[in-house]
């Protein structure tokens, strides 16, 4: 089953829409019952989106939701999603894929902050850039992403994969400040550059193929390694020593100044 949600033009397109109801499983029942919050008002989903449904499905895995039009302010899409697929044709708002445990989200444009926050499983693929806190834990949370696969083809903002506790995060572009801070487990790969990675790391593996600025002095150099794909020579660091951490960072090039 394909559910096509086309965003209707809005009088004020800057008012955020909280749409935790947009998960594939929810469309096994009639879409009329779904509400979204536009600002502080509850509105039926059909007020904000034109809904077109093609075909049928017996379970959530057989449902594909397609978001069209301006969805850059639509938040919490795919929250707690367990199966099925969501395809976003343009940009998506904050908190896309919160807590998702299965299924797949594909974003053709950019993603706003908190993409895949605290996700437990499933896959997210973002073809554009992701904003801050991609794959991280919410403020005050001890565990960020715990499982699953999150890939961003463009750049990511600050605090990418903060509190990472499992799963895999791949950023093809650059990251902002402090990626992988408080990392506990899982793997984080940054193909581009970043600054001050992995502070307070206690476990897991981080690989950075660009240049690290402001490398933290609390990581101990522990030999070199060769990256299998591409044959790039990397330096291995262990730490964060300040936290008696047992994490590993592989870095191609670094400087201690910011």
């Amino acid at each position, binding site marked *: 089953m394909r559910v096509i949600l086309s965003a209707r033009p809005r009088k004020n397109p800057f008012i955020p829409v909280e749409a935790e109801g947009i998960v594939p499983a929810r469309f096994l029942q009639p879409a009329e019952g779904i509400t979204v919050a536009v600002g*502080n008002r*509850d509105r039926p989903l059909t007020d904000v989106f034109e809904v077109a449904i093609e075909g049928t499905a017996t379970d959530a895995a057989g449902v594909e939701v397609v978001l069209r039009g301006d969805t850059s302010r639509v938040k919490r899409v795919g929250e707690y999603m367990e199966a099925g697929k969501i395809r976003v044709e343009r940009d998506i708002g904050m908190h896309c894929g919160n807590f998702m445990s299965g299924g797949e989200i594909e974003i053709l444009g950019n993603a706003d902050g908190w993409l895949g926050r605290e996700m437990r499983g499933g896959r997210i693929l973002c073809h554009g850039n992701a904003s801050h806190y991609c794959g991280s834990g919410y*403020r*005050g949370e*001890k565990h960020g992403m715990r499982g699953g696969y999150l890939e961003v083809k463009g750049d990511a903002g600050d605090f990418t994969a903060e509190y990472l506790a499992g799963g895999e995060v791949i950023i093809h572009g650059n990251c902002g400040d402090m990626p992988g801070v408080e990392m506990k487990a899982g793997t984080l790969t940054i193909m581009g550059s970043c600054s001050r990675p992995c502070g307070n790391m206690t476990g897991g593996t981080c690989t950075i193929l660009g240049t690290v600025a402001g490398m933290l002095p609390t990581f101990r150099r522990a030999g070199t390694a060769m990256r299998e794909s591409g044959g790039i020579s990397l330096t291995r660091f262990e730490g964060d020593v300040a936290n008696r951490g047992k994490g590993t960072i592989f870095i191609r090039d670094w400087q201690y100044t910011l």
Partner: protein
Amino acid sequence: MTRLLIKNAYVIDPLNGIRGEVMDIAVKDGWIVESVHDGAEVIDARGCLTLPGGIDSHTHICGTKVNFGRYMMPEDMRAGRTQRRGVMHSTSGYSVPTTYGNSYRYSTMGYTSVLEGAMAPLEARHTHEEFAATPLQDTMANTLFDGNWPVMEAVRDRDVKRAAAIVAWTLAAVKGFAIKLTNPGGSECWGWGKNVKCIHETVPYFEVSPAEIIETLIRANEMLRLPHSVHLHCNNLGVPGNYQCTIGSMDLAPDLNPDRQSLYLTHVQFHAYGGTSWKDICSRAEPVAHAVNRKPQVTIDMGQMMFGKTTTMTADGPMEFNLYRLHHNKWSNHDVELETTSGIIPVYYSKTSVVNCVMWAIGLELALLVASPWQCLLATDNPNGGPFIKYPEIIALLMSRRYREEELRTLAPEALSRITLPSLDRELDWHDIAVMTRAGQARALGIQSIGKGHLAPGAEADIAIYPIRVDETDPSRQFRDVIRAFQKTSWTIKRGRPVARDGEILVEGTNKTVWVKPKVPDQYDMGKDPEFARNFDRYYTVRMSNYPVQELYLQRSLCMESEAQL
């Protein structure tokens, strides 16, 4: 303004000696009066238990540490969300809800006055700002003096009058209500990574002991003629074997005030542990309760612990660090310059934990073993022992032996040999509960004089009407009905206006804050004392002139003035 007539109410009003009479209550302009003329709004309370509005004498609902609890616990914020509806704001949170969440839930349970258990003077503004957003209760704030440098200097110099003068200036400046001592001396030690184990150890540099701080401030408190007594969170909280320290602290209290206690010990459940370690912890509620029974000058509150998820937050920084070492979960640690500390961690109290089962039993044992309900008040040290929404369950546990037995069967079996609860037959009656949830608090806090905690003409019209027929209910067997009734009032009346009906909030409301201003002779006015001002400007990071909380922070302000005898 409003006139209201509550008809056929079954009233228990301990402060006026009413032990259950059917009567009418007339209300005019927010106060209870002899009678009202026709045309008043009538509430028929037939078959309903009608009590003065509930008072919580120790809770943590407003201020910096509560707010930090909200900040560090997003999972708690996700629990218990309600949407905006009518006059109600949206709320969220379970153990540390938003201010409106606290206010609505208290009001639904019939509570109309609450005392914030610990306000750091330096951070008082934040507390008052949150009070302003707690519209349906009158609020008071205990003000922390446990590690206050000028006070400790006065204690070292054995100058009770100077200590009293500093307290007087600070209370009036920060719009506080009473003296709170949280682990006295221990918070200053924590600045050095240390703690005090009991009342006779010394604090570094100041060379004073917790016992000296407590004794001096009890006498200073009575010199200032403050409505409430010193409010003490004893040293060595939550450590097996700490009951002796608790009894030792009680022994420090002289009997100085004929109207109320001279020392209020809070959340005594956390201070009545026997044993030497977590492995052999056992209940020592019995000797503690007997000590209370021997001392009319002491009042305690239970600090009952209830199973489930909650957040612990206290100004006792070192204790929270010990908890952190047990749990290895989130921890917040905070220093308030020159004054105190604080710490926060989330906890889960489980029935499979022997320690938690013993803690649960100790609180109930204290309430059942203290002979006079006036001396043991009902509280959970919200949210440390459990969120206040558990009060109805505690009431039922105290009223029903059968309910206790039912619960005891679900506990970790090893706990049973370490507690005396299974052997206690006492079941409290409706009057005892009325004392432990409102009248006792009003007397202990000294706020009868402003019309709190009773229903005679002249009292403030704070009334809770619970949907339960006292004459037809046997709380011993029908404890579930008791829980249900105390969870949701039929009517909660605040300042003469119905504010909640069957769990629905009816009005927006405005908060009133009660604070104290002792009038001291000119030579004891710390605002004009050169040494105090010099040290203030030398050590604090704020200017003395910026320190006091302006009255505009208080929506409705009730200042209780007293003539200090210095």
